[in-house]
């Protein structure tokens, strides 16, 4: 492994930029994601920054059961993120639809049908610590040796 690659691995594991997108949740998981920013959990000490701009993000947090309004939009948000990238499903809704997954509801879970999901955090809502440890666990695995894997 070249020195440049090693430097890239180190830098990528120390600086993770996150965007989150709510594809129709009840706001419970949004609040838990925002709680990660609070001094109690303080994600910035791990080098995780929330910009909410897909153009400069590494990780996309997908929140909520998939509503029809997001049919084409989620895909385009995902394509705007530069490589290497990963998407994490936060909460039960993007995994299974949770309590909204009833007959005659308009949602279309799981989100994995629409964009590739690399990790899932179950819970309704998941705790901020669980979200935090999921981001910290996924980022080094997905971003390690990205240039080597691409070739």
């Amino acid at each position: 492994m070249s020195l440049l690659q090693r430097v890239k691995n180190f830098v990528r594991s120390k600086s993770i930029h996150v965007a989150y997108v709510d594809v129709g949740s009840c706001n419970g998981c949004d609040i838990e994601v925002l709680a990660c920013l609070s001094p109690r959990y303080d994600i910035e000490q791990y080098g995780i920054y929330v910009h909410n701009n897909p153009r400069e993000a590494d990780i996309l947090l997908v929140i909520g059961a998939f509503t029809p309004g997001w049919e084409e939009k989620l895909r385009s948000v995902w394509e705007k993120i530069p490589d290497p990238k990963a998407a994490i499903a936060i909460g039960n809704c993007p995994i299974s639809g949770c309590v909204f997954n009833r007959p005659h509801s308009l949602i279309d879970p799981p989100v994995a049908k629409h964009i590739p999901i690399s990790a899932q955090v179950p819970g309704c809502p998941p705790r901020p610590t669980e979200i935090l440890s999921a981001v910290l666990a996924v980022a080094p695995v997905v971003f390690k040796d990205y240039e080597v894997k691409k070739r």
Partner: protein
Amino acid sequence: MALSLTYYLKEFFRLEWLQKFLFVRTVPLVTPPYFRNFPELTGKTCTHHLFCMMACPAPGAIDVIRTPEGWQPRIHLGHCIRCGLCVEACPNGVLTSGRILETMFYDNTALSFSFRIDVDTDRCMGCGNCAVACPVNKLIDAQMSFGGRASTDDLLLKVSEGKCQVLHVEKCTGCKTCEHHCPNEAISVARLLEAVHAPEEEL
């Protein structure tokens, strides 16, 4: 003034302080054991009352499946919302989550299920499908004939005088088999879930 400022600035050049400032970070907070988490098995024997499945508000979150060791509830992550109702509804304490079982013990509370069967006499045509399908009836009178007629009165459901009669509603287990087998939607089972303080068997 100048002295105190020097002392103040000197603090920032202490090696220990610099090390802390640059490198120390808190580990992600661990979840305390008393937090309500996904229910886990306690190892007690499940008696297949299925009260956990009846109390569960999230679709597809809990199943009771048959294993070589007997019946066992399974929690499905990604569906479970950690409400803890299955833990409270279980009559045997098969599941545990956080402090729910301890709290129930100290407060002497329980969730109790009762069932009510309503027969719409205008719709019931006395075909007896409900009485024949009922698993409780099958245990009491395995010889029950087609049409739901029987000689014994110990049954849960029975057809007499051309209508379905509910005889012993306290024997109902709430499985709703009768409801699924009724061709006319005449019979309906209501599951009543109530929180009780000081359950009767402990008084």
